[in-house]
C-alpha cells in the first residue's frame, strides 16, 4: 500500500458549513443471509387487496426507465396512476440516450457469472460506498429485466441461432452486457413507453406531458401530492395522491455542460429535499473521459462516445505547447506525449475512467491541450483561454488492423464524431475531453426505496442507492428498470396498505402554502427584470462547479466555490432577466426555476465534497491520493452515506450518517495494476 502525499487535514474545514445530526439506519432490510433478504421483504410487506387498489392514487414524476416502468407496472396492478413529464411525450426521457448496454447476471456465456458476482462487481466498482442489501437485490432481479424486455419486443442483438448476444463492458471480465447496437437505452425506453401507453389505453395511467413538478405537498408528515406548472398554459395546480414517486433522473446539468439532456434538472428532487427528504452523497458525480470536446463559448451540451474507443485508440498531446495549433499529422512521433502510456505503463490507455479524465485535465492545465480555445475563469479570478482537448489517435490501429476492421468496430462512433466536428477521424486524430455524465448521489432512500418523508419514493438515477461513489458501465439502465419494474411495485404496497389517506383539497393548509410558494417563486423570478439571461448565470455556475467540484477537488477550492456560489445566487435573484409572462409557453421561465434550484444544490454538493476528506470513485480529493495519483479511500472515517437534511434558506444543513456495514464483501483498496 502506497503512502499518502499529504495527510488529511486534522481540522475539518467543512465543520463550519453544517451541523452534525444523528446516524440513520436503513430499517427495512430484513436480517439474514443476503440471498434471503429480498424474498423475506416481499413476504413481510403488507399487501393491498386488488379490489382496493383502484381507490389508491400514486403520482409518478418522470417517464424514463424507472418512472415509465413503475407507472406501467403499478397501472397493471390496478392502482390509479398519475404520471408526469416535462417533455412532450413520455418517450423522450433521457434514458433514451444511453448507448452501451444493460447488465444482467444470466450467465448465458457460461463464464462464471452469477448474481453474487454482479453484486460483488457493482459494490467494488462503486468503490465500497454502496449499500450491500440494495445492490444484491439489483443483481437478483437483473435477469428478470431481460426476460421482461424481450417479451415486450425490445430488439436486443442476437446471434444467428436466434439467441441473445452479450458483450463485455466496463472493464469486467464476464460478458454479461445485453445490448441493442449503440442504442440500448432507446430500445429499453421504448419498451417501457409501450407498456406505459398500454396502461394509458386501459385507463389505469393518466399521462400529463409538458407538466413540470415545482413543489411537493406534505401533509401530516406524509407526501400527499405535488404542484405542477402546465408548461403550455402556465397553470399552477395541485395533484393529490396516497403516495408520490420521484423518478426524475440526475442533476448533472448543475455543471451546465454535461451529457444530460438540456431539460434534465434537479427541481423535483430538490423541492422534495427542501420539504424534508434527505439528499445523499450529492458530490458523487461520474465524469466520462471520452466525450467530444467543447467547441467554443456557445457550446450547449456535450456528447458522449463509447469508452470502447480506448481499446484501440492512443491518447496523446504534443510535448510542447507551441505545437498545439499544428496539424496533428505534422507532429513527429518524437514530439508527441502519449501521457497515459508514459505515466501508467501497465494499463496505458485503459486506465479507469476517473484517471483518464483527470490526466486529460492535467495536460490541458499545463497548456498542452488541443482544439479550439475556450475562455475560462481561473481560481484566482482571472480570465484565461485554454484548449480543452486531447488526441485520441487511430492511425496506429488503422495501420495494424486495416481501415476496414476499424470501421467495422467503431464505424458508427466515427460517423457521429464526423457529423458533430466536421473532421474525419480516419484521417486526423479525434479530439476528446471528459464530461459530466452521471450523478450517483440523489435522494436518500431505504431498502424499500422510500425517502425520509413517508410516502415519498425515489427510483432510478434520482435516488442514491446502488452505485456508491462510482457507477459501472451498463448499470444505470439495469438500476432504472429494476427499481421501476420489480422493486418499487413490491414495496410501495406496504405503505399503500395503510391508505386511502385523508382526502385532500385546495383548502388544506399545506396545499395552499405549497401553491403560494410555487406561485410566489414564479412571480419573484419574473419580477427581478435584471440585465442578465438565465443561461449566462447557468454557465457561470457550471464553470464554478467544473473548476472546483469537478474532476479534482481540494478543501481550499471547495470553500472558494461555496463563497462564489452564494454570491452568484444573490446576483441571480437581483439581476436575472426572465422575459414573458407565466400564463404562456415560456421556456425562459422554465429554465429560470431550474437554475435557481441548481444554485442551491451546488452549494450542498460542495459542502458534501468538502466534508468527504477522502478520494473514492468519482470523488477525487487532491489531499487524499496514493503516490501514483490513485484515489485513496479512508474507510475508517468515511465508510458512510452522507445524508443531508435541509433546515432552511441560509441555514446550515444537518449531516446524518448512514454507516455502511459490509457483512458479505470485504473492503479492499482499488488497484489497477
Amino acid at each position, binding site marked *: 500500500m502506497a503512502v499518502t502525499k499529504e495527510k488529511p487535514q486534522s481540522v475539518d474545514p467543512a465543520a463550519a458549513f453544517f451541523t452534525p445530526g444523528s446516524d440513520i439506519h436503513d430499517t427495512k432490510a430484513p436480517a439474514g443471509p443476503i440471498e434471503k433478504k429480498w424474498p423475506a421483504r416481499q413476504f413481510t410487506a403488507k399487501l393491498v387487496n386488488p379490489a382496493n387498489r383502484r381507490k389508491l392514487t400514486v403520482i409518478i414524476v418522470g417517464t424514463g426507465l424507472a418512472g415509465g*416502468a413503475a407507472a*406501467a*407496472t403499478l397501472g*397493471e396492478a390496478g392502482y390509479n396512476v398519475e404520471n408526469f413529464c416535462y*417533455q*412532450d*411525450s*413520455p*418517450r*423522450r*426521457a*433521457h434514458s*433514451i*440516450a444511453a448507448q452501451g448496454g444493460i447488465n444482467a447476471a444470466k450467465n448465458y456465456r457460461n463464464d462464471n457469472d452469477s448474481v453474487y458476482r454482479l453484486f460483488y462487481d457493482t459494490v467494488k466498482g462503486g468503490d465500497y460506498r454502496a449499500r450491500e442489501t440494495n445492490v444484491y437485490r439489483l443483481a437478483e432481479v437483473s435477469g428478470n429485466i431481460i*426476460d*421482461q*424486455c*424481450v*417479451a415486450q419486443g425490445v*430488439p*436486443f*442483438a*442476437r446471434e*444467428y*441461432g*436466434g439467441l*441473445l448476444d452479450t458483450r463485455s463492458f466496463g472493464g469486467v471480465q464476464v460478458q454479461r452486457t445485453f445490448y*441493442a*447496437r449503440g*442504442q440500448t437505452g*432507446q*430500445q429499453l425506453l*421504448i419498451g417501457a*413507453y*409501450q*407498456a406505459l*401507453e*398500454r396502461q*394509458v389505453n386501459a385507463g389505469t395511467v393518466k399521462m400529463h*406531458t409538458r407538466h413540470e413538478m415545482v413543489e411537493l405537498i406534505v401533509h401530516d408528515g406524509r407526501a400527499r401530492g405535488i404542484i405542477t406548472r402546465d408548461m403550455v398554459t402556465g397553470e399552477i395546480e395541485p395533484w393529490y395522491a396516497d403516495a408520490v414517486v420521484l423518478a426524475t433522473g440526475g442533476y448533472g446539468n448543475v455543471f451546465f455542460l454535461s451529457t444530460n*439532456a*438540456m*431539460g434534465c434538472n434537479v427541481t423535483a428532487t430538490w423541492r422534495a429535499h427542501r420539504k424534508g427528504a434527505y439528499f445523499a452523497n450529492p458530490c458523487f458525480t461520474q465524469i466520462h473521459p471520452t466525450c467530444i470536446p467543447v*467547441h*467554443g463559448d*456557445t457550446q*450547449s*451540451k456535450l*456528447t458522449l462516445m463509447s469508452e470502447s474507443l480506448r481499446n484501440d485508440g492512443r491518447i496523446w498531446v504534443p510535448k510542447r505547447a507551441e505545437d498545439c495549433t499544428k496539424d496533428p499529422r505534422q507532429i513527429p512521433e518524437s514530439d508527441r506525449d502519449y501521457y497515459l502510456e508514459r505515466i501508467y505503463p501497465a494499463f496505458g490507455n485503459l486506465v479507469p475512467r476517473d484517471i483518464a479524465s483527470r490526466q486529460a485535465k492535467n495536460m490541458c492545465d499545463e497548456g498542452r491541450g488541443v482544439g*479550439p480555445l475556450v475562455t475560462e475563469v481561473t481560481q484566482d479570478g482571472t480570465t484565461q483561454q485554454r484548449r480543452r482537448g486531447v488526441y485520441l489517435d487511430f492511425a496506429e490501429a488503422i495501420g495494424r488492423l486495416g481501415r476496414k476492421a476499424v470501421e467495422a468496430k467503431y464505424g458508427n462512433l466515427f460517423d457521429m464524431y464526423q*457529423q458533430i466536428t*466536421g473532421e474525419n477521424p480516419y484521417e486526423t486524430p479525434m479530439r476528446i475531453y471528459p464530461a459530466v455524465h452521471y450523478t450517483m448521489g440523489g435522494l436518500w432512500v431505504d431498502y424499500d426505496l422510500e425517502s425520509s418523508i413517508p410516502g415519498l419514493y425515489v427510483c432510478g438515477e434520482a435516488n442514491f442507492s446502488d452505485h456508491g461513489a462510482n457507477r459501472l458501465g451498463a448499470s444505470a439502465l439495469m438500476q432504472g428498470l429494476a427499481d421501476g*419494474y*420489480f422493486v418499487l411495485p413490491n414495496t410501495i404496497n406496504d405503505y399503500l396498505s395503510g391508505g386511502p389517506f385523508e382526502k385532500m383539497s385546495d383548502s388544506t393548509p399545506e396545499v395552499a402554502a405549497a401553491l403560494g410558494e410555487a406561485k410566489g417563486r414564479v412571480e419573484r423570478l419574473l419580477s427581478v427584470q435584471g440585465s442578465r*439571461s438565465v443561461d449566462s448565470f447557468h454557465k457561470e455556475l457550471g464553470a464554478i462547479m467544473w473548476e472546483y467540484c469537478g474532476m479534482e477537488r481540494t478543501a481550499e477550492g471547495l470553500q472558494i466555490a461555496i463563497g462564489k456560489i452564494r454570491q452568484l445566487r444573490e446576483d441571480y435573484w437581483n439581476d436575472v*432577466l426572465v*422575459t414573458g409572462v407565466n400564463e*404562456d*409557453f415560456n421556456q*425562459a421561465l422554465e429554465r429560470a426555476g431550474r437554475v435557481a434550484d441548481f444554485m442551491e444544490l451546488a452549494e450542498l454538493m460542495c459542502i458534501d465534497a468538502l466534508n468527504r476528506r477522502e478520494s473514492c470513485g468519482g470523488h477525487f480529493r487532491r489531499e487524499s491520493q496514493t503516490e501514483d495519483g490513485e484515489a485513496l479511500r479512508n474507510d475508517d472515517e468515511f465508510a458512510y452515506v452522507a445524508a443531508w437534511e435541509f433546515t432552511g434558506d441560509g441555514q446550515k444543513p444537518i449531516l446524518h450518517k448512514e454507516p455502511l456495514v459490509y457483512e458479505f464483501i470485504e473492503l479492499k483498496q482499488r488497484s489497477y495494476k
Partner: protein
Amino acid sequence: MKITLKVWRQARNASTGAMQSYQLNDVSAEMSFLEMLDMLNEQLTSQGQEPVAFDHDCREGICGMCGVVINGAPHGRYSSPVATTTCQLHMRNFHDGDVIEVEPWRAGAFPIIKDLVVDRSAFDRIIEAGGYISVNTGSAPEAHSTPAPKLQADRAFDAATCIGCGACVAACPNGSGMLFTSAKVTHLANLPQGQPERRRRVKAMIAAHDDNGFGGCQNIGECASVCPKQIPLASIGQLNRDLIAALFHADGRNS
C-alpha cells in the same frame, strides 16, 4: 459568419403567425443549428424581446424532441450531407450571408403551440391504440425460451430506431403519419413476441392514425427521404401487407 434568419413567430395556437427576420453576426461554423438558435435567443433576451420558442432536449439526435423545417425541409435535410435531426445539423453546412428560413412542423394533426413548437401527442395516441405487446410485468417467460431469427430481429431493430420526431408528417404533402405508424408495426411484426396481437395491432393503429387527423399515404416518399433514422418506405409496404392480411381475420373487429 453572418446569417439572416427568417423565423416563424406565432404567439399561441389561436393567433396568426408570420415570418420575422433577424440578423446574427458571429455564428461559428462549429455551432449546431440549435446553438445558433440559442444565440439568437440570448440576443433577443438582451434586447428585452421574447426568445423564440423551440422544442429540444437531448441534442444527441435520439430523443426526437427537436425538429423544425429549415429552408423547406424538415430537420434541414437538404442542407446536410447525411440524414440528421435538427440538433445534429451544424452551421458548417451554411455559408456567410445565407438566409435561412425556419418554420414549425405544419400539419393538421400537429397544432402549433407557440413559434416553432407543435403538439405531437397524436403520435402517443397511435401507440396507445396498439403499438405494444401486452405483457404484464413479471409474467415474461425466460428470455431464451423463444429464439428470434437474427435477420428478422435486425429488421425489427431498424424499424424500432424511429424516434417519433414527426419529420415524416411534416414532409408529407398529405400530412400522413404512415411512416411513423409503419415503423412500429414493422418493429413488432418482425418479432415472435409480436405475433399474437399482430392483426389487431395494425387495424387499431391505423384506425387511431386516421382518427387523429393524419392524411392518407400516396406513396410519394418525402417521409423516408427526410427521416433522420432512415426508416425505409418499405416499412409502409409491411404495414399494407399486414393490414390486408388482417382484413381477412376477425381480430380487433370490435376494438
